[in-house]
């Protein structure tokens, strides 16, 4: 029996356990640069003991079902624990799905009257090998939100550049629908899994959301995690070509 079902442009969000209360914080970690968002969100789900409460289905997702510990699991899942709702995916979103997913997801989030929606991502830095402590950058879809997010020590504003793919489209939809949506990025390898960058994002979220998550276990298992995520990174790299993700290495043109 399905809970609430929303369907727009072939994307449906199914709440197996309905999410009824407002004021929640939504965190999204779809795979992209360095799998930073995916690693950080999955780690939070594990450490905060979030429970699977729903999934997202779409016409353009490949016909695949994942199996883990002898159990079937959806490719794109929604988790909940207390005031945090997290969304993760086992596969990169195909390019044709990016916009429909952003429209449907943000419209669903708006219907929940959230406190905040946060996308987590990597900021590609070709010099990452020389960076011991990746910098964290934040951007809200309105200036007041950016000021609030940057009030945590040690982070900077994302001042200019491009944000490609579903993260950029979610931010745009949040701006359009007047949802407090933001993106948190850490300097990262472009197409190598980067648990070190994910750890910096978790440290920031720990302070912002007062959730006190220890990143030591993540850093200790970093090499194993990189090996486990190699195939996902390879496929994500392929998809990133299709959405001009390398544009994030450029600055917007200035005509004056």
């Amino acid at each position, binding site marked *: 029996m399905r809970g609430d079902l929303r369907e727009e442009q072939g994307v449906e969000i199914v709440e197996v356990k309905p999410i009824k209360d407002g004021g929640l914080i939504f965190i999204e970690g779809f795979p992209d640069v360095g799998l930073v968002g995916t690693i950080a969100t999955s780690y939070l789900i594990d450490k905060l003991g979030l429970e699977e409460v729903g999934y997202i289905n779409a016409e353009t997702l490949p016909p695949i079902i994942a199996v883990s510990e002898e159990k079937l699991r959806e490719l794109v899942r929604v988790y909940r624990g207390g005031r945090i709702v997290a969304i993760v995916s086992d596969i990169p979103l195909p390019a044709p799905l990016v916009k429909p997913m952003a429209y449907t997801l943000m419209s669903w989030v708006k219907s929940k009257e959230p406190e905040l929606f946060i996308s987590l991502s990597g900021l590609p830095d070709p010099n990452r*090998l020389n960076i011991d402590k990746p910098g964290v950058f934040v951007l809200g879809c309105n200036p007041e939100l950016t000021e609030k997010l940057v009030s945590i020590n040690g982070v900077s504003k994302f001042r200019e550049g491009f944000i490609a793919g579903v993260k950029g489209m979610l931010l745009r939809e949040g701006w359009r629908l007047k949802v407090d949506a933001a993106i948190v990025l850490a300097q990262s*390898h472009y*197409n*190598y899994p980067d648990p070190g960058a994910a750890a910096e994002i978790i440290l920031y979220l720990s302070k912002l959301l007062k959730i006190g998550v220890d990143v030591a276990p993540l850093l200790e298992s*970093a*090499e194993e995690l*990189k*090996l486990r995520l190699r195939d996902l990174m*390879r496929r994500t790299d392929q998809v990133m070509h299709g959405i001009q993700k390398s544009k994030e290495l450029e600055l917007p043109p200035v005509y004056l």
Partner: protein
Amino acid sequence: MERRSLWRIILEGIRRMEAEVNRMEEELFKMIKEAEVMRRCITPLYNLYESGDEVILTADLPGTNKDEIELIAGEDYFKIEAPCKSPVRRIQEGRYVLHVRLPVKVDPETVKARYKEGVLEVVAKKKITGHRVKVE
């Protein structure tokens, strides 16, 4: 009407090209995974750049250590081999193997390499021959 048909033909052509690229990439993924399972040889993720007078290769080699990495640098290739110790099923006791053909010739005696946080970086100076030309 005629313009719409032309657009449809162009769009169908683009879709066919996309499908062909997807098919080729899927074939590549399949070949990589089959080789990894059959030969226990792991193809690492890697990037190859040209920057000014240098050629730079980086490769993601988690689960090894710098003393066990074998790097051979030729004028037009890098060959990297390293053991990979991992608890990940199918990768246990595997071996990284990467043979990359370089886009330009390099001077093998200039090659420098370092291994940091699971990433190997190899930098070589390009072999540049020619005559200096005065710009008028």
